[in-house]
């Protein structure tokens, strides 16, 4: 029913939704918690260390990094196929002016 290309796009879109959902949602939900944490940590130490604010955000980030590298691997695999195909067409002078 769907072409291979459409399917790949759909799978990638689903991955995107699943991965970004938990990443963004808890971070916006816990602003008050974050403010409280920040106030406490600022009293304890004046240096602010950048890090995930809670376990949900941390998990979301790990999922995102995993998803990102998986996507990169898949895209690199497809790009290598495209390069092979483009080089083959060029060798065959498929788009050259001579042929036209």
């Amino acid at each position, binding site marked *: 029913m769907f072409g291979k290309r459409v399917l790949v796009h759909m799978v990638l879109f689903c991955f995107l939704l699943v991965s970004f959902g938990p990443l963004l949602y808890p971070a916006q939900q816990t602003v008050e918690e974050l*403010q409280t944490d920040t106030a406490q940590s*600022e009293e304890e130490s004046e*240096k602010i260390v950048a*890090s995930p*604010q809670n376990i949900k955000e941390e998990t979301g980030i790990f999922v995102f*990094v995993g998803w990102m590298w998986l996507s990169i691997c898949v895209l690199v695999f497809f790009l290598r196929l495209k390069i092979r195909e483009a*080089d083959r067409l060029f060798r065959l002078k498929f788009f050259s002016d001579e042929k036209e």
Partner: protein
Amino acid sequence: MKSEVQSWLDERFGLLGITRFLTHKKVPLHKHTIWFYTGSAILLFFTIQVITGFMLILYYKPTLELANESVGRIMTEIPLGWIIRSVHSWSASFMIAFVFVHLMSIWITKSYRKPRELTWMSGVILLLISLFFGFTGYLLPWDALSFSATKVGTDIPRAIPVVGAWVTSLLRGGEDVTGDTLTRFYGIHICILPVFLFILLGIHIYLVQKQGMSLPVEAESRGEKVREIPFWPNFVYREMIVWLLLVGILLSLGIFLPPSLDKAADLMAPAPEGIKPEWYFLFLFQTLKIFPAKILFVTGETLAVLLMIFAGALFFFLPFIDNKPLQRKGKIITGAAYILIIYALVMSIWSLL
């Protein structure tokens, strides 16, 4: 439907001409082709800088009282703000690193030779702008370290005879590093430098398109025919792989190694120990440190700064100095590039020890 939209756009923008240009543009494939990817990598990091920079502008407040606090807020309160800031910071480092690699690769492969002299010169100015971007951006968090480093950095031009004090005053917006300096640096960072960079980048890219990609100097002198591939889509697909991997590395580093934020700078506090500039200024910083206080009748700092300006001028006019690339002179100049790389690495490591 697609072709209708395409022809509608083509009538207005002349897209067909651009497509024809891209498909007819050829990229030579040889042992130095790998260095061509550094140019597009710089463009990629610059785009990331612009996007993340826009996001940071929304929350950053460039005033003495609020600068440090607003960066702290970005890191702790704004959803994923710490990642955006971290990616902005890492992307700046990557961009400058790739500018260095790009220029050194052009020097070593002698791609600046006739008729690409202006391409090189615009590239050197782009390096200076990138460094100035880094310098001005470093102060913006307004923490103790960046404040002291800027104090030291803006004091260096003072060593230049005649105009030195004026340059320092112009940079600082007064005698000392104050809130005025912060506002000034912010304006330069987000307004003045981007304008210059866009203009020069446009000229640089136009010149690259006009002159085409260079061939190895030996192959060109022997008149050898080098294998070529079309820029679109064959070379662009290859570049996309590089971009994907670089974005992956950048985001991973941005997430797992984010920069922290020190307490707000105190104008009255003594300078903290171990002030160091960003990594790309370390070799210059160490060079200044090794000069003695006085040499004959001039101060060591003045002599060091004048030598640096002289070296910078030589670097800028390199294509005209290295006008016989295949002869002994050309080989000595290539050797000088390797010596400079080793010198910069040794000095940077020494400065960190």
